[in-house]
């Protein structure tokens, strides 16, 4: 079983995926921006799109994809189990809430914001808040990682679990955080600034244009993932995933390398948080709960750890089923058979079953990374090896 990874031309393979990605993105954009509002569109198609894939659902899926790609760097590349990823999502979300709304009404800071200069609160340009959210999360990733990454995998998972509970709780009860209101508590921060794109400002209902922006962010994450994977750092992550001790004996600084995986992953969480805040036009503490961490992890595992395309597929499928697919299917089923089953309530039962069957029959995920597939099917491959060798003789 000789499997060879050929030295493919990096520039060429990059051009290939960027082309394909752009075509699909453009088609989606045209569908949602121009086709859907078009009055000549047959009612049947209009209804079908709204039932199966409404504009808000696809945007939400993209937010999940961005974060799943970040988690993939931590879990898929470096092999560190993180059960508290939702914390970064929350921090990113609140960065948007703090710097792009009237939340700090007693201040008046406006930096290229999309609101009039005299509006109260901090209003920083969306694109900068993206970066701020990303970097704040990266810093938190390092702060959390520094004391905990020395732990072996199971213990690390438990600590991240705790972290993922603490941060959302802080925001949930953040109305009085040592005397300061940092989150409006359960009421949440309602209304964030629209996204300035030069010619106009994108409000909460400009789904088509926002789709384009989210597609762009996803592409940036894919790009970062692929580039890092092929570089010096990506190799070190993989080496740590394979054999931590041997990696350190070969001069790879374990702490720094793991921390950088954490920081890059957290950065993506921050991007996702800011994007999500603009998507739902606000920040609501009760959205950031533990199930999201598990949900994101399931996306990475379902799609195929370590392979960005697999992760995108997994994230898309799961977020679609959760957000819209199952409800739409239930509607159709109930209409057809005259029943009144609440399909949406079976979401997590379905996910549980899917994961069980995955682990039984397709452990490496839908679109696995070639290496992982080899590792998980070691016994079977060895059998094939043995039989083919005996056949040679």
């Amino acid at each position, binding site marked *: 079983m000789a499997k060879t990874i050929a030295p493919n031309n990096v520039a060429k393979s990059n051009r290939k995926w960027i082309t394909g990605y752009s075509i699909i993105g453009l088609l989606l954009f045209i569908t949602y921006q121009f086709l859907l509002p078009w009055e000549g569109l047959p009612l049947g198609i209009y209804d079908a799109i709204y039932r199966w894939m409404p504009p808000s659902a696809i945007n939400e899926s993209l937010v999940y994809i961005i974060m799943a790609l970040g988690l993939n760097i931590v879990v898929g590349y470096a092999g560190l189990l993180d059960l508290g990823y939702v914390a970064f999502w929350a921090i990113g979300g609140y960065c948007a809430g703090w710097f792009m709304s009237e939340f700090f009404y007693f201040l008046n800071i406006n930096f290229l914001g999309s609101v009039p200069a005299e509006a109260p609160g901090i209003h920083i340009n969306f694109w900068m808040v993206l970066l701020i959210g990303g970097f704040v999360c990266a810093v938190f990733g390092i702060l959390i990682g520094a004391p905990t990454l020395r732990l072996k995998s199971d213990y690390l998972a438990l600590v991240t679990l705790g972290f993922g509970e603490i941060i959302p709780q802080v925001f949930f009860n953040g109305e009085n955080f040592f005397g300061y209101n940092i989150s409006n508590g359960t009421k949440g921060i309602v209304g964030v600034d629209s996204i300035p794109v030069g010619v106009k400002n994108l409000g909460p209902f400009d789904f088509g244009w926002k789709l384009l922006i989210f597609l762009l962010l996803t592409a940036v994450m894919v790009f970062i993932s692929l580039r890092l994977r092929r*570089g010096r750092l990506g190799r070190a992550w993989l080496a740590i995933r394979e054999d931590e001790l041997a990696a350190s004996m070969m001069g790879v600084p374990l702490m720094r390398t793991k921390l950088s995986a954490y920081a890059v992953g957290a950065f993506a969480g921050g991007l996702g948080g800011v994007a999500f805040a603009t998507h739902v036009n606000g920040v609501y503490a009760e959205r950031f709960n533990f199930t999201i961490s598990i949900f994101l992890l399931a996306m990475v595992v379902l799609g195929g750890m370590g392979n960005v395309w697999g992760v995108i597929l997994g994230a898309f499928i799961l977020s679609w089923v959760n957000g819209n697919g199952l409800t739409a299917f239930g509607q159709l089923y109930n209409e057809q058979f005259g029943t009144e089953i609440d399909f949406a309530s079976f979401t997590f039962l379905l996910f549980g079953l899917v994961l069980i069957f995955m682990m039984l029959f397709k452990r490496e995920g839908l679109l696995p990374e070639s290496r992982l597939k080899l590792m998980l099917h070691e016994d079977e491959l060895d059998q094939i090896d043995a039989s083919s060798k005996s056949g040679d003789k």
Partner: protein
Amino acid sequence: MSNILEANDISVQFGGLLAVNNVNFNIPKKSIVSLIGPNGAGKTTFFNVLTGLYKPSAGNIVYDGRDITDLAPHKIAEIGIARTFQNIRLFGLMTAQENLLVAMHSHLKSGITATILRTSKQRKEEREAEERAQEILDFAGVGKWTYEFARNLSYGDQRRLEVARALALNPKVLLLDEPTAGMNPQESQIFIDFVRKLIAERDVSVMLIEHDMKVVMSVSQRVTVLDQGEKIAEGSPDEIKSNPRVIEAYLGKPKGSK
């Protein structure tokens, strides 16, 4: 100073067990020295101390005039002490080339931003690293497996690849832990020739842990014998062969003697 590495009065204690007891050991420049002893004598423990995996409970290690006793393992690797493992520990699901590039990690400079942007400097660095990796792979005789997963290589080739990976660190001291274990006599002979070539062509000293006496006696300039954590003999291969304490450690005391 003619010694590249000096370990002075090293002791390692695990709970109540004294695994290495007050051992002095040095490696002269451009030499091959061997460490032998029965199973459980503390040879691999001593290796692990030299590479920073264990910290000695007493004693210090000086490499190239610098005290490295308290350095982290990856630092020790970076400044030039490389090793292989008793049971091969390659990165199995990485190609031979990638295995070597990982070892070059500490000598490459590109950070996150440079890698994402693929700056011309980063591209040049990667290209040069790949060329150097190929050179070392060719030198170690596994040049045709550049893009093959390490786990797919034959046993002998994996051993050679592990040495190649260690060489990619550009070490001045190479520690080989039972490199010919599981090899047949022909393979061992090829390996001996390879180690000799290594010393002849590169500025490197080799320290060997080995059970195969034929290999030890034919290749080493000096042999040190450990037994139950203590150094019981040191000298040229011929001296060691006839040393009564060594024979006793390996074969036991002759019948009737006290």
